[in-house]
């Protein structure tokens, strides 16, 4: 399982890349692996106002439906609409395919996110709970 060192993470298995006051949001390798084959992505609206903890996108695999939550509040300034036609990109390269970019209202919200080391530890614990699979 890949956990790039230049990103921050949530306990819902999203990754965040901070570029100035913009937060780039995607799902992690752990998330795509556990969802299985992704067949549908519903993206947020451009210019939508979102609040931290809110579901902003929906990802559906063959067997499961999952929400993507934003850990930061702000305005959606970009969405990756290539995912609408090619949702499997999230399985293939979860870190190269963002879901949305959010212009943050309060950049201090990122302080609550996990570091790569913390996230790796978090995933190990989740794997154990899921029966080591």
């Amino acid at each position, binding site marked *: 399982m890949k956990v790039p060192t230049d990103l921050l993470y949530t306990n819902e298995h999203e990754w965040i890349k901070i570029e100035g006051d913009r937060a780039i949001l995607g799902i992690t390798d752990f998330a795509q692996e556990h969802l*299985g084959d992704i067949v549908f992505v519903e993206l947020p609206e451009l210019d939508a106002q979102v609040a931290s903890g809110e579901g902003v996108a929906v990802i559906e695999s063959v067997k499961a439906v999952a929400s993507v939550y934003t850990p930061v509040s702000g305005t959606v300034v970009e969405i990756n609409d290539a995912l609408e036609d090619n949702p499997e990109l999230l399985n293939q390269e979860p870190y190269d395919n963002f879901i949305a970019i959010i212009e943050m209202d309060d950049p201090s919200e990122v302080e609550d996110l996990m570091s790569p080391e913390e996230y790796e530890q978090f995933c190990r614990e989740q794997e154990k709970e899921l029966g080591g699979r």
Partner: protein
Amino acid sequence: MSDSLKRTPLYEIHQRYGGKMIDFGGWELPVQYASIIQEHHMVREKAGIFDVSHMGEIEVTGEKAEGFVRYLMTNDVTRLKDKQVQYTLMCYPDGGVVDDLLVYRFSQQHYLLVVNASNTEKDYQWILSHAPEGIQVANVSDQYAQIAVQGPKAQEILQKISDTDLSQIRFFWFEPQVKLAGIQCMVSRTGYTGEDGFEIYLPAAEAAELWERIMEAGGEDIGPAGLGARDTLRFEAKLPLYGQELGPDITPLEAVLGHFVKLDSGDFIGRDALLKQRDEGIKRSLAEFEMIGRGIPRSHYEVYKNGEKIGYVTSGAYAPTLGKPMGLALIESRWSEPGEDIDIMIRSKLIPARVTRGAFYKRPQK
């Protein structure tokens, strides 16, 4: 995984092949090995091997077995010849479905019923409770392992390890004594994928050996397939699943399975209710639909017409071979004709869809 889950004789095999195990109605079975979609395509294009040992097997024997089985079933088993298989349903007196199943006829005095895993005990008790004197009913599920080999290359692969000419087993027929890799098996040309293929019944102790010999014989042309692919394959071929398209509160006529209900050839449990339903008009029907708007329909999503709820989705999914989301819904019959515009409630939004007919997968004829 809970310790109370039942394991099939192929449990070790699933571990070895990297199966992702889940609790499936009390059985620990692989939902997938690597990818549901890859496994799905493998079955449509070449061949897949499935562990379906969890299926229930109930034997009915006795001098008057034929009449007894006829009385339990909606389909007419008296039409069967020895070594023939029939798809049928068992109903309650009110027309609701106890289970859907396959009937194998060895002789007029000996039938094997292959039932849904999670219904095995219920079915066994149901059958037993109706059995008159002179009829023996036995739940023999634990004696059998069952392996399904499905796909256009299924016959070619199995032929490599058998001296029996498998092309002689026609669709929905079986051979009780076939040697595969030297192992004594019962083989039927049946399946639950919409492809050509076989279902193989054999003693539990030899299942792992046969699995490996089939994998060797198939080489690049076969891959293990899990329950996830089994579900997308059956759904895409519009084969009903008990608990979704069928259940105690859904009649076979509502599920548009009237072809398997013979109302004019002898009495059976549920016949009066089904006759009444037929004569009074069937108020809700299973309909195919495709999405017009973006979204994937899923079981239990509500279906609307002109803002009024008219039913619910029984099964829905992204259909991998058709390459689009499709659905089956139980809706008011007056809206179930092809071309009707309906809406599916997906995450509190009404998404447009359209009733279709014949849009599901049919395998290309040779």
